[in-house]
């Protein structure tokens, strides 16, 4: 029991981090970035390359992952999203294509066998009957630190307020001297960096493989759809619902069920409450 609670809490923290970059883009740019899972994959592979191939320290690996993710987010906005401005279907299809292209690129560079990342922090911790790897503990703590940092940034800085403003009223933002295009660019950069860092932790929890972008994408989509747009707290709660659902189903029923309940939850909410459990009315 305590195993389930602890594992559930830790996994949920990681899931919240996975979802937040995706939620950000959806709330501010109104784009379902289906290439988001690929940011996580890139983050994982960049980390692998710099730490396990080149032998750099872990923190440098995480930093490089963040930089790569940020650059890819910015390029994607500039080259695809902005060019196709307003055409949501075209943007979403091209983001999905981009994910597949990135997957092919990864196979080309790293081949298609899966790889195990060394734990970011090795060791285990036993409390009560439960064992917790330092790795997932680090991932969860780092996730919480990043989420709190992001929350404070969005609430209290000029750029963060401008991001909220653009998400609520583009014209209102523009006449206040905010350049919505620049804010979108910044948001895509932040989202890419967040995704890539989440990818490092996710890959260290599971493994690296060229198809690893699908599972986190489903988690992120689920958090947005179930949580609804514009609610950071709602996203956190949903990340916990999904995290616990997954731990409970995989430990008590069968490991093969990983992800299945998440997808059922997406469909259930789409049918019964399209706005999401915590979403605001569309503006």
């Amino acid at each position, binding site marked *: 029991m305590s195993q389930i609670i602890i594992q559930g809490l830790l996994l949920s923290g990681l899931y919240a981090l996975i979802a937040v970059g995706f939620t950000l883009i959806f709330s501010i740019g109104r784009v379902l970035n289906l290439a988001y899972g690929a940011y996580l994959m890139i983050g994982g592979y960049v980390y692998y390359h710099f730490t396990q191939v080149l032998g750099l320290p872990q923190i440098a690996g995480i930093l490089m992952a963040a930089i790569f993710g940020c650059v890819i987010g910015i390029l994607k906005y500039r080259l695809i999203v902005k060019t196709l401005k307003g055409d949501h279907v075209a943007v979403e299809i091209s983001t999905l294509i981009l994910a597949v292209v990135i997957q092919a690129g990864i196979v080309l560079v790293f081949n298609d066998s899966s790889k195990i990342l060394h734990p970011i922090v090795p060791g285990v911790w036993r409390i009560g009957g439960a064992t917790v790897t330092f790795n997932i503990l680090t991932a969860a703590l780092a996730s919480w630190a990043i989420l709190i940092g992001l929350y404070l940034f969005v609430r209290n800085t*000029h750029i963060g*307020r*401008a991001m*909220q*403003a653009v998400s*609520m*009223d583009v*014209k*209102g*933002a*523009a*006449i*206040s*001297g*905010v*350049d919505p295009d620049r804010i979108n660019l910044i948001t895509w950069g932040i989202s890419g960096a967040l995704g890539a860092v989440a990818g490092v932790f996710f890959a260290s929890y599971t493994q690296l493989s060229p198809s690893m972008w699908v599972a986190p994408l489903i988690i992120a989509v689920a958090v947005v759809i179930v949580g609804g747009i*514009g609610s950071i707290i709602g996203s956190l709660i949903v990340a916990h619902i999904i995290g616990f659902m997954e731990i409970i189903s995989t430990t008590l029923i069968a490991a093969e069920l990983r992800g299945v309940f998440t997808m059922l939850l997406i469909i259930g909410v789409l049918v019964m409450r399209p706005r999401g459990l915590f979403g*605001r009315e569309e*503006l």
Partner: protein
Amino acid sequence: MAFLEIEGLSAYYGKARALHNVDIAVEKGEIVAVVGANGAGKSTLLDSIMGLTAIKGDIRLGGESLAGLSSRAIVEQGVGYAPERFNLFPYMSVFDNLMVGAFTARDEADRNLQHVFDLFPRLAERRSQETYTQSGGERQMVSLGRALMTGPRLLLVDEPTIGLAPKVCHDIAESLRRLNGETGLTIVITEQNANFAMSLASHLHILETGELKMSGTADELGSDEELNKAYFGH
């Protein structure tokens, strides 16, 4: 040379032309009203000054052309805008809405905020309220306040009194008069109600289906018979 010079301005939505060859000059420290019926092009005119529409012709502020600049650059040039539907950020507090207005004027944010709270004490009381829960009058104050947070030399207000109770209209008019009187701020408002416009503005411009029909002081226009019938209801 006037402070704000609008010269041969035409504005387009796609191929449709919403303004045709409009000339307006506004002197520094003046309150000027643009009067017109629904669809005359009042909002289009203010949007055009703000860089939000496709235009031909020129718009100059203090001699510098605004045509072709981004809205952000126009805000930095000193134009503040309180638009018709306010375009507030509904799930942000009054304070945060105002602070977004300070985006390009961060160094003066404290001073401008104090100024806004002096002008609208109600906003100071309600600084944590999210604006989607506010009344129309309060939203108009937030909208004006946000425009003032940009530190404008020219304030554009689109139909300041539309949908507001007479008492609130009076208060808003009083605030605009105070702003103009105390800080010498140049103000351009639009109105459907010519009588209200007349009570506030020194010069009026009558807009009809995208064209400037007539311009003049309140006295000049008040004695025009045809105009009286159409806009003043007597």
